[in-house]
C-alpha cells in the first residue's frame, strides 16, 4: 500500500467521543501522524463507527452506518483512529454485517486490511519507536479490552510512552481487566459497572501512579468519572495527548483552570 518516497494518505477516524468530549485527542492524533510522515485528512461524512447499534443487535442500523464509513474512507491508504474499540469494530466486525451481501462484503474486507488503531499504526506500520515529548509523572496504563484482545494492542503504547522524557510507568494489577464501561452496558447495568470501575480505581490507586493513561476515551471517561467521584487525585490522559506533547492542559474531567502542575480542583462537579 505504501509507495516508497510518497507519504501515505491517512483518513482520520475521529470517533464520536473524541469529537464530542475531547477534541484535543483528535488534534494530537493528527500531529503524531503528520510527524510520522503521513498526509492526514479528516473526511466530513463521519459520525460514529456504529458499535452501539452493532452491540445492541441492531444489524440494520449498523449496516447503514458501516456503508457510510466505508464510502467515506475507502479511498485512503489507511484508516486510523485513536480508539481500539472503534477501529476494531471497523476492522474485525464490519464483515459480520455483510455476510449476505457479497459486494459490500468485498468492500468491507478491502477496507478492513487498512484499518488501524492509532498507537499500533505508529509503531507497527510507520515504524516509529519514539516521540519528542515530555511528561513529568508516574503513570499507570489501562489496556482497553477491544484494542488488547481484538487488535493486539499491548506493547505498542508502552514502547512509545517509554520514549517520553520524564515519563515513568507503574503497572497496576489487573491492567487487562475490563473497567466496566462496555458502551451501553454501563447504563444498562449500572450497579455491576460501578462495582467493576470501583475495583479498577482501587488498582489504579494501589499502583501509586499520579496519572492514568489509556487508548480509549470511553474507558478513560468511565475511570475518570469514578476517580473524581471518589476524590482520587489522579490525572487522566489519552496516550496520544502525552505522546504529542499536548498533555499540558487539564486532564479528562478536570476543571478548566487546572493546568499541568496546578492542584486539581476536587470539588464535586455540579449539573
Amino acid at each position: 500500500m505504501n509507495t516508497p518516497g510518497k507519504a501515505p494518505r491517512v483518513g482520520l477516524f475521529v470517533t464520536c467521543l473524541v469529537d464530542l468530549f475531547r477534541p484535543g485527542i483528535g488534534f494530537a492524533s493528527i500531529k503524531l501522524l503528520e510527524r510520522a510522515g503521513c498526509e492526514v485528512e479528516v473526511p466530513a461524512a463521519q459520525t460514529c463507527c456504529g458499535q452501539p447499534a452493532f452491540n445492541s443487535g441492531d444489524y440494520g442500523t449498523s449496516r447503514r452506518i458501516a456503508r457510510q464509513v466505508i464510502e467515506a474512507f475507502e479511498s485512503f491508504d489507511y484508516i486510523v483512529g485513536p480508539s481500539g474499540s472503534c477501529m476494531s469494530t471497523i476492522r474485525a466486525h464490519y464483515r459480520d454485517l455483510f455476510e449476505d451481501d457479497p459486494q459490500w462484503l468485498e468492500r468491507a474486507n478491502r477496507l478492513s486490511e487498512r484499518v488501524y488503531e492509532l498507537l499500533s499504526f505508529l509503531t507497527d506500520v510507520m515504524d516509529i519507536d519514539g516521540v519528542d515529548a515530555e511528561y513529568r509523572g508516574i503513570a499507570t496504563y489501562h489496556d482497553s479490552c477491544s484494542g488488547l484482545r481484538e487488535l493486539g494492542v499491548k506493547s505498542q503504547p508502552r514502547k512509545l510512552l517509554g520514549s517520553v522524557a520524564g515519563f515513568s510507568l507503574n503497572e497496576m494489577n489487573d491492567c487487562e481487566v475490563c473497567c466496566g464501561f462496555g458502551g451501553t452496558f454501563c447504563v444498562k447495568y449500572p450497579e455491576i459497572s460501578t462495582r467493576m470501575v470501583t475495583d479498577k480505581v482501587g488498582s489504579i490507586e494501589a499502583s501509586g501512579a499520579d496519572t492514568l493513561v489509556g487508548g480509549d476515551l470511553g474507558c478513560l471517561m468511565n475511570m475518570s468519572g469514578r476517580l473524581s467521584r471518589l476524590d482520587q487525585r489522579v490525572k487522566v490522559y489519552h496516550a496520544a495527548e502525552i505522546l504529542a506533547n499536548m498533555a499540558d492542559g487539564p486532564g479528562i474531567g478536570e476543571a478548566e483552570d487546572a493546568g499541568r502542575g496546578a492542584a486539581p480542583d476536587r470539588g464535586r462537579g455540579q449539573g
Partner: protein
Amino acid sequence: MKAAASHLFKQRVPAALADADLQAAMGKAQDGFVGKREQAVSDYGDFDALRDVGQEIKDHTLAHLDYYLERYEAEVQRSGGHVHWARNSEEARRIILDICERVDAKNVTKGKSMVSEEIGLNDALEESGIAVHETDLGEYIIQIARETPSHIIAPAVHKTKDQISDLFHANHGRYGFHQRLTEVPALVNEARQILRQRYLEADVGITGANFLIAENGANLLVTNEGNGDLTCTMSRVHIVTAGIEKLVPTLEDATAMVRLLTRSATGQEFSAYTTLSSGPRRDGDQDGPEEYHVVLVDNVRTEMLGSEFRSMLRCIRCGACMNHCPVYGAVGGHVYGWVYPGPMGSVLTPLNIGLEQAGDLPNACTLNGRCGSVCPVNIPLPDLLRRLRRRQHEAGLDSRYSRAGLKLWSALATRPAVYRVLTRCGVAVMRMLARGRGRLGSLPLAGGWTDSRDMPAPAGRTFHSLYRQRGRR
C-alpha cells in the same frame, strides 16, 4: 426441576453485590483460578496450539456426530452396557427413574454432573422416595445447604470457609460429629467419613462424563477427590448422564482434551483421579457394577448443531470463562438463574429456556472478550452473545426505551450534517452546565452513569467544528 429464575437477573444483582460473604468468597476464588491457570498455561509452552487441536477435535466430532454416537453406542453394547437416548429432560428423568425402580434402589450416590442439574434429576429421585447423596465435596455442601451450584466445576464457590463450618456443625451432629471445625483438612475429613458410608449403602451410582470415547465406548471422568471412582465401582448399577456433545473419536483425542481441561479449569497438569469406565463388571474383574447404563441427553443440542451456535457445543465445561469474567466475579453464579452461569451460561441459558426468560444474560456483558481469550476450545463467546442480542432485537424483545434510543441515534448518525449541528448544541449545553468545573455531577437521563461517577464535560467545541475552523495544523 427448579424453576429458572433468569428473568430476575437485574433485580437480584444489588443483593448479590451487597452480600459480604459472597463477595469475599468470589474475590478469593477468582484470583486463585486465574493465577493457577496462567501458571499452568505458561508451564505448558504452546498452549494456543493445543487449543487449536482441541477445537479441531471437537469440530470434527460435531461434523460427524451421528457417526460417532452410533459407534459409541455399539462399543458400549459390546462391553455389555446399555445406551439410552433422551430427547429432553423429562425423558432423561424417566429413563433413570425406571432403572432405579427396576433394581429397587433406595440409595443413590452421585458424582458431579451438570447434566443431572440440567435435567433436574435430584428432585425427581427424591420425589420417588429415593435418597440421593452427592459425593463431590462442593455438591455435598450445596446439597446440605439446599442450594444449587453457582459454578460448573466449583459448585460451592460462593461460600466462605466460615459458612461451611457452620453448615457442617449444624448438619453433622446426627452422625456424632459435634465439634465446629474450622480448618479445611478437618472439614474435608469429616465429610469424607460421612460419605464413605454412603458408598457402601449405594444401590445405584450416577456420574457425569467428561469425554465419551467412540472407539472403545469408555467414559473418561476427572475428579480430584476420587469420588467418581467410588461412585462408579461400589454400587450395583452405574448410570452415566451426558450431553450428546461429550463424544470424542479416540482415547488419544480424549487425552489431548484432558490436557486442555485440567489446565483451563484448575491450573492442574492432570487431575488427581482420572477414571475410565466402560461397561459392567466382567468375569474375573474384582469390582465394578453389575449393570452399566449411559443416558445421552439432547435437550437443545441437535438444534444448536444446525444453527449459528454450533461452536458452543465444543464446550468442555472447564469454567475458565466464568473464572475470568468480571461480571460473574462481581455477582456470582446464582443470579444467572439457571444451571449454567457466566459467559457459557449466558449463551446456553437463553437457548434452553428462551430469550424471553433470559433476556438479560446476553446483555449483562461488556463484550470485553476475556472469556473467549481463555476458552480452551476457542469458542467465540462474545460473538455468540452478540448474536443472541441480534435475535432479541429482531424479535422485538429488547426494551422499548432501548429501541427508541437506537432509532433516534441511528437517524442522527446517518445524517452527518444534522449530527454536526445537534452535537455542537449538545456540547455547548453540557459545557454551560459544567461551568468550567470540567465535569458534571448529574445529568438528565444519565442517572445510570452519574449516580456513581461524574460525567467529564466536553473539553471544548466539537472536534469537527474546531477542525473546520482552524484548518489542519
